[in-house]
């Protein structure tokens, strides 16, 4: 007897193509141009530097503004000092007396021309009115002496 050998058959298998991702980088690498990459890298590297320079420039500009304001303060202070000196010189008693005597013809009063007037003593402050029953009651109610000191109107 003949045993039948199991039949086997091979079928061609069509394997699917490798995923495109495996091949794409190779293709892209082969197509990539280096210059933009370098430029991009350079930009990335330069940007912080630019930011730093911009910050420094702004600081310098602000510094000049501060310097200008300081100088302005100094100028105003100097002007104030000059005016103080001028007003003090104008108020000098020697100058005022010279003008009073020479230009205005004023004279020092004689003792007989000066009278001392007796100033009456200031009137005594009006006495604080006595507290009413209602004031005391209110003070007791709110437990405040200050309130008791405020007489009812």
């Amino acid at each position: 007897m003949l045993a039948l050998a199991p039949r086997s058959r091979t079928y061609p298998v069509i394997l699917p193509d490798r995923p495109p991702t495996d091949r794409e980088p190779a293709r892209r690498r082969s197509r990539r141009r280096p210059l933009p990459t370098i430029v991009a890298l350079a930009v990335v590297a330069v940007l912080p530097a630019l930011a730093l320079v911009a910050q420094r420039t702004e600081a310098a500009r602000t510094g000049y503004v501060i310097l200008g304001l300081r100088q302005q303060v100094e100028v105003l202070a100097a002007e104030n000092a000059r005016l103080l000196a001028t007003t003090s010189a104008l108020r000098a008693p020697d100058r005022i007396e010279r003008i009073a005597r020479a230009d205005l013809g004023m004279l020092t009063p004689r003792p007989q021309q000066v009278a001392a007037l007796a100033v009456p003593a200031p009137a005594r402050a009006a006495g604080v009115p006595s507290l009413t029953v209602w004031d005391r009651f209110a003070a007791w109610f709110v437990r405040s002496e200050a309130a008791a000191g405020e007489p009812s109107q």
Partner: protein
Amino acid sequence: MLMTGLLLVALSVLALRLAQLQVIEGGRLHQLAQRQQLEAIALDPHRGLIFDRRGRALAVNVDATSIYAVPSAIADRQAFAARVAPVLGQGVDEVKRRLASGRHFAWLARKVTPQLAARVRALGMADQIGFLTEDTRAYPNGPLAAQLIGFAGIDNQGLSGVELSYEQVLRGTVGRAIAARDGRGRVMVETQQVLGTPQDGQDILLTIDQVIQHITERELIAAVERTGAKGGWAVVTDPMTGEILAMATVPAFNPNSGSDANVRRWVNRPVAEAQEPGSTFKIFLMAAALDSGVVPPTERFFCGGSLLAPGGIVLRDAGGRRHGWQTMSEIVKNSCNVGAAQVGTRLGKAQFFHYIRAFGFGRPVGIDLPGESAGIVPPPSAWLGPGLQTISFGQGVSTTAIQLLTAATALVNDGAMLRPYIVRAVRDHQGRLTDAAGRQVLGRAIRPETADAVLQMMVGTTRTGTGTQARIDGYTVAGKTATAQKPARQGGYDPDRYLASFLGIVPIPNPRLAALVVLDEPHGAYSGGEVAAPVFRQIASQVLWYLRVPPAVQPPTPSGGVPRIPAATGTP
């Protein structure tokens, strides 16, 4: 590919160089750069101002331009000097000498007028000449209180007066900073690092009053002109506090050009000059005699016009006057030398010396002004011959005006002497008070009842004694005249040179003023009662009005009636 490679190589080289500069040598290069760019800057403080007791400015700061040269930029110094010197008002040699003082910087003129600075600018030598703005001291009242306030030098350092004694307070502290400068020489604020903050000097409020000072100076100048005196000085104080209200010396100088003035005029004579006090010293003799109990107030001494003193010296009264029997009050009232010598003899050297020292003579009173003299009080062992007797009427010791006034404060403060002071308060540049002075008792010289008794003796002097010309209508004045002979160069005393003085206190009771007026070598009338007492009256009467001190008695009108007071209506 080649390009890429080259670029990468170039970038790598740059990166490596960058790393070398920034990382490897960064620290060293940073220091080098800082040395080149950063500059140390001195932040100058402003000097404190000086005000009178009512806040009126007596010394202020104003801007002034200073001119410097850059010698390294000047090729031909002779030509430069020849061009610049006439404009600056200097000699060519002087300009050349100044140029030799520095390589990159040499002062040509400091703190010049704006007009002069403009003329130098007009020369158009900007690369060789520079201008700086500096603070300069200005005294808006000119010679008012010149010796008292003093003045500051070219570098704003105090050289005399309050400017000198309060230098530490007024000067302030210099600050330090480092900062970079840009190409135009401007400070780059963002690089500035303040190492020490500058502190402006503090302002000073004096005890003197500008108006009282003016009155005192005006009357003193008038008296010096009237009497032909060489000079004079006067001090006005508040005897109840020790505050100096005015301190004047004639002739004065203008502190705005202080360094140009005669150096002798800088001297604040009431503080720095000790002279024999003359008869004003009798009041302290009487105080000592009464306080010690050695001489009872009712005792009388005979004045025959002269007295034979130890050593065979004959002491005489001025003009050979014979006063007859004199009580102690009368000795003061008539300024009797013979009587004073007898009181001194009774008192004795030891007792008198004890009281002289107790009144503060012979040592500085401690006023806050520079150059105070201690005066001269020899020890009793040196009082040879008639020493005790002459010192009794103010010859043989020397005192300053401020010592006499300080001793006089004991008469109105129950025997306690007060320290005189000139600075009332110190405040910082924001107006906050940082220090204040006040009444300070130096010590008790005599008992209160002794002080009252001596004060009444002085009242007698102005009522019927030698000081009647110091009387002020409506006020009771206590005073004492003095006419002191000046020592002669060849020894002894010069018969033609006198110091005439008057020490007064007003009103009595409740005194508000004590003043001492001294005239140096008056011509013609020379006694204190004739030339100094009227000056006191003029000063005191005006100052009492100014201080609104009402008279105790209303002065009569020429017609004898009550003065007519105009109605307070009309102008608002």
